[in-house]
């Protein structure tokens, strides 16, 4: 049964996944891989939400819906991000984040 797995383990899993994503976000210099890291972070959050939903408030669906909306937002975000990458690549011929600092000035 599912109760054999303690909630803490789910939370540990999501925490680890979250910080793996953060590590990637901080170290990767390619915009696409940064996007991958962000997806990992969002998914870690989803796991967290669902685990709470399941273990603490099984009679409710709030965690479920939150995850659903997070997925929807992540989808639109990914679409916009990819459009920006392609436009960027077309203009400055690179998708390295170090090169994209024109907004500084």
């Amino acid at each position, binding site marked *: 049964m599912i109760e054999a797995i303690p909630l803490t383990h789910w939370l540990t899993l999501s925490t680890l996944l979250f910080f793996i994503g953060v590590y990637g976000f*901080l170290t990767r210099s390619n915009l696409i891989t940064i996007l991958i890291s962000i997806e990992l972070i969002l998914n870690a959050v989803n796991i967290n939400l669902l685990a709470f939903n399941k273990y603490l408030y099984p009679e409710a669906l709030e965690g479920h819906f939150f995850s659903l909306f997070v997925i929807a937002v992540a989808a639109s975000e990914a679409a916009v991000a990819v459009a920006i990458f392609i436009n960027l690549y077309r203009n400055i011929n690179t998708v390295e984040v170090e090169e*994209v*600092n024109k907004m500084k000035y």
Partner: protein
Amino acid sequence: MDYSYTIWIPLLPLITFVLIGLLGGKVKPIVSGITGVLSLTVSACLSIFTAYRYFLVDGAVDGVFQKIIASNHTWLRFTDTLYIDMGVLLDPISVMMLVVITFISLMVHVYSLGYMKGETGFSRFYSVLSLFSFSMLGLVLASNIFQMYMFWELVGVSSYLLIGYYYTKPSAVAASKKAFIVTRFADLGFLVGILILSFQTGTFDFSIITSAEGLATLGNVTSSFIGLSAITWATLLIFIGGAGKSAMFPLHVWLPDAMEGPTPVSALIHAATMVVAGVYLVARLFPVFSLVVPGSLTVVAWVGGFSSLFAAIIACTQIDIKRVLAYSTMSQIGYMMLALGVSGYLIEDSLGFTASMFHLFTHAFFKALLFLGAGAIIHAVHSNVMTEMGGLRKSLPITHITFLVACLAIAGIPPFSGFFSKDEILVAAFEANKILFAIEWLVAGLTAFYMFRLYFSVFWGKNRNYEHEPHEAPLSMTLPLIILAAGAFGAGFIPFSHFVTSTGETFTSHIHWNIAIPSIAVALIGIFVAAWLYKSENDRASSLAASLGILYKSAYNKFYIDEIYLFMTRQVIFKYISEPIAWFDRHIVDGTVNLVGSFVNFVSERIKGFQSGQVQQYAFYFMAGVITLTIVFVYFYSN
């Protein structure tokens, strides 16, 4: 008795100033000149008409000339008791000054048409000349002391602008600055004096200050400072202002340098009108000086007497003709101050006051004539230095005759105008103080000597080789000379004591032959000595100078007053006061500011790396911040 039209006498030159100043660059220069002349002509006609009405028709009530407030407007109202008016005050001296100023100014305007022809900035010259006429008229018509102060500063500004007319010449710029700074320095005293006086009386208005109640109020003032009463201080400070403007020793240093300006300017400002403003100021406040603090009048008398002697000695040695005339001006103003100083207020012993005003009047004519004549000479030979001149009487006949008239007038030879006014001054001095009389008697001789030294050196002596043949000036220049010569000859016959007196009452003065004959004698001696030395080519003058040695040399160098001032300012004030202050400012004050600046700069240099434009760095800081806050709030501030 409606005199409200007199407001237009100063306003016309003001309008002309604005018109020429704004539009002068767009029209031919001669149009500006004609405009200036026409407006001054109208002003002069109005002034003479006013003088006629005031003195001969309705100015006097029961034989006493009244103070008339022709118009008065509250200009700045701070509180109900503190307000500044702009008004027109007519009394004998201001009406007399009106005539002098507008007349001389008109002559100078006409003369400048010829003299300044072809100069760059012709329109500028006329606009500033109009500004000066306006300011000077406003000064003499001022109904209150603050208005007078304002116009006082305005004439200073016009004088500055006109001395620095040739602003491409460094010496002219330096002279204009010197004149402005020296007179401004003196005006500080004037301002403080005004404030003291007005504080004690509670008003700026001349007619209230000099009324019986005002004088009584001043007489009751008991506050004092360093042993002198407040009113004594006020009068002395005001006199310092007047002395600065009137080039009295030791504030005279600007006047000789002011000769850097165009000659007509010297004639108008630095001979006939502006420099006598100090005399006018003392005369204006004469009741305060005379009735409340007679001691300050003694100071006025001695400063005037000393200045006249001092300037006369220097004038004997100068070789620049304009400088000779400048020192002569200073000497003659010394006469006027002295006459004021020895005068009493009451009609019985107010001869000095009348004499001073009389001398102011006649001096304006002959000194303006001298300057304009000098201008004609300079115009002809293109030099200021009299040793480069000689034998000009053939080529410049009109200038020669008019100059001679002016010289005789200033030397005090009857029946020229200077004789009458100088005689009155000498009589007044004789009655008051024998030492002052002796000084003035000596100065009368010196005056005759240096004027005729100038006259003989320029018009007689050997004919020099000039670059081109000297020729007589155009009609626009000779006509004012002739008119002024007529004035210099005839002005003395005006019975001045019937018009201008301290109280407004009149008396009849007579020529005192027991005083006049010695003064004529000493003048004649001066003339003969000058003729002996300079009429024909000889080396008597230089050998005399050599025998006088150090005396001659120090007089030639103006008794080193300029050098003393330079020493005082550069070596003492600058070195021991200004430089430490400058050091403090530069190192302590600036240092503090710079320290703050460089600290900010330093910090900015250090933290500007944070703003790198690298998104990941921002993300890192963000993350670090979030984690830190999380730890802090979960483990340290959780309760």
